[in-house]
């Protein structure tokens, strides 16, 4: 029996663009290089051999994360239900969030340099609670804008106080 979290009756998740894998990998590679270089300064300057273990461990962790990236990106999903936005992400660390449309304070669309080159946008749904943290990455730019307009319209029709 699977002990994973699944919502009963919710099967049709809308997935993000597969191209987002590239954005994720580029981001991971940059942070891998930076953190390996930072930890490698110590063994280089002190010439103590076992200190190389630190950058080595970090490199291995990053390799595993990189290998899992396509599956992790596939795990990101969202769904517009009647009255709330449902969002999920994560393989090892699963996370499900449901936000009523009326709780929306604003919607952000962000585009990083790599994402822009691939024509992708990131949509951020902001509520009064900082912890809500619903950020849908890897949406094709046109879809993201359409989704934003739709969310704003839905929020307007279901406006609630704080």
């Amino acid at each position, binding site marked *: 029996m699977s*002990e*994973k*979290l*699944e*919502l*009963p009756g919710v099967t049709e998740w809308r997935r993000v663009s597969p191209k987002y894998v590239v954005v994720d990998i580029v981001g991971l590679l940059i942070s891998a290089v930076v953190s390996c270089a930072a930890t490698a300064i110590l063994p280089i300057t002190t010439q103590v051999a076992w200190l190389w273990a630190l950058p080595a461990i970090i490199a291995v962790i990053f390799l595993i994360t990189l290998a899992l990236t396509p599956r992790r990106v596939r795990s990101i999903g969202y769904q517009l239900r009647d*009255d*709330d936005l*449902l969002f999920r992400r994560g393989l*090892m*660390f*699963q*996370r*499900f*969030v*449901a*936000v*009523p449309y*009326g*709780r929306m304070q604003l919607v952000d669309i962000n585009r990083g340099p790599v994402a822009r080159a691939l024509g992708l946008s990131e949509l951020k749904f902001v*509520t*009064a*609670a*900082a*912890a*809500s943290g*619903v950020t849908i990455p890897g949406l094709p730019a046109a879809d993201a804008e359409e989704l934003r307009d739709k969310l704003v319209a839905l929020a307007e029709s*279901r406006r*609630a*106080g*704080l």
Partner: protein
Amino acid sequence: MSSTPPEPPAPGSVSLGQPSLVDGEWHRLHPATPLLRGGIALIVILGIVVGNLRDTLIQLVVGGGERGPEDPLSLIYERGLTGIVLAAIALGLIAFIVGFYFSWRMHSFRITAELVEVRSGIFYRTNRKGRLDRIQGINIARPFFARLFGAAKLEVNVAGQDANVQLAYLSSANADALRKEILRLASGTQAAASPTPVAAGGLVDRRVAELLAPELDPDAAPPASVVNLHLGRLIGSLVLSGFTIFLLVLVVGTVVIISVTHELFFLVTFAAPIIGMGSYYFRKFTKSLRYSIAGTPDGVRVGFGLLSTSNETLPPGRIHSVQVSQPLLWRPAGWWEIRVNLASKSSNNGAASQANTSILPVGNLADVKKVLELVLPGLVDERSIDLIERGLTSRGGDDGFVNSPRRAWIIRWFSWRRNGFAIEPDAVLLRSGAVWRSLVIVPQARMQSVAMHQGPLLRRLGLASIIVHTVAGPIQPRLGAVDRDAAIGFFTDVSAAAVLSSARDTSHRWRSGEGRSNGEVTA
């Protein structure tokens, strides 16, 4: 910030038929405002300067003694610059007074049926408007010095950081009346305003009466606070706090170290915490003195403070979550503390730097029930009160809460029996902790979103954690180690209930149903 030219009072503004501050016209603040806001600093600086030059002044007048050549006063005196310096000082003083006067003249506020607006500044004009239906609370703070002048600071809190509209300072009696009027306008009630009582007697009598008056105005609240905080209980709660344990550990540690090393030098490490301790206890103590809490038609009113007082009214539906907790040391005495999450951050922790999130510093079970009745009006029937009581004191088992399964003991050693949730029609209750007991109650109409998480360890155990997101505050409503299926059920039910409750919620205009039909409701 926007700069607007000073405009004439809006024509055709609402008039209530009596001289009132809420007539939509522009009003000025208390005349002592500049002195209270900045002038005190000037007096202090003058005091320091005079104090430092005192010796020189005495020598100048009395003569004798020896003056150093580098002494500024004697330099001025010997070079015959006395007149110029005196003129400069006089000019500076006049500039200050004129500046104060104009800053007072330019600082004005108005309150209309829709918003409260403040404009201020001589060169940089500031104009701030707050919408009345967005009010999260109104706080009246009376710092000790301002109380001597019969002045009070009124702060209209709206959601967000640094988003408060401050009216500093008003005359003390005005502040209370104004708060009542603003709340009446904001509540959306159609009932007519009741006349404002005018304090009688001479100036001194009024001042004395204001200083001694309890932090409740008898007109708008039931006469007595629902909870009386005994002095003994307050002191006891401080002595039995976690900080005291830390202090004891420190004392024992220091004594051991000194007896081992015979170095008295280690006493130094002890000195700083002792000084810190004094101010910590003093602050906690004075802020909780004369604590009062009472229900009014316009929400809960909480007052604090001995010399500097603070008194906040929270309209209904402004409390985003409530936590009742009990540290281990308080358990023999049966004491509890209640804290709340609010959307607004009151910039003035004025009354002895109190955090305005502690709504009951210490109280027994009966006090807790009375306060919860005020802050959660949806949970007053017999069954919910019963449930809350079980949520506080029950050891677990089949008691109306959905508790963690037995296999959760690996990550909740002592509390797995007690670690659970309950869903009520109006609120969600999260119970946790066997050593440090705590019950978090989140009104469904105030939830921002619901989440559930599961990491590798929880997955192996068939568990998950659930989180309810509210506005930022001292409380983070979350529950770990819940059975997987129960968590999924919670997520499904609560996300549906949150939508329904927020659609039904009308607390932004909390009395909008009132007063239309019967016309006259006592405010």
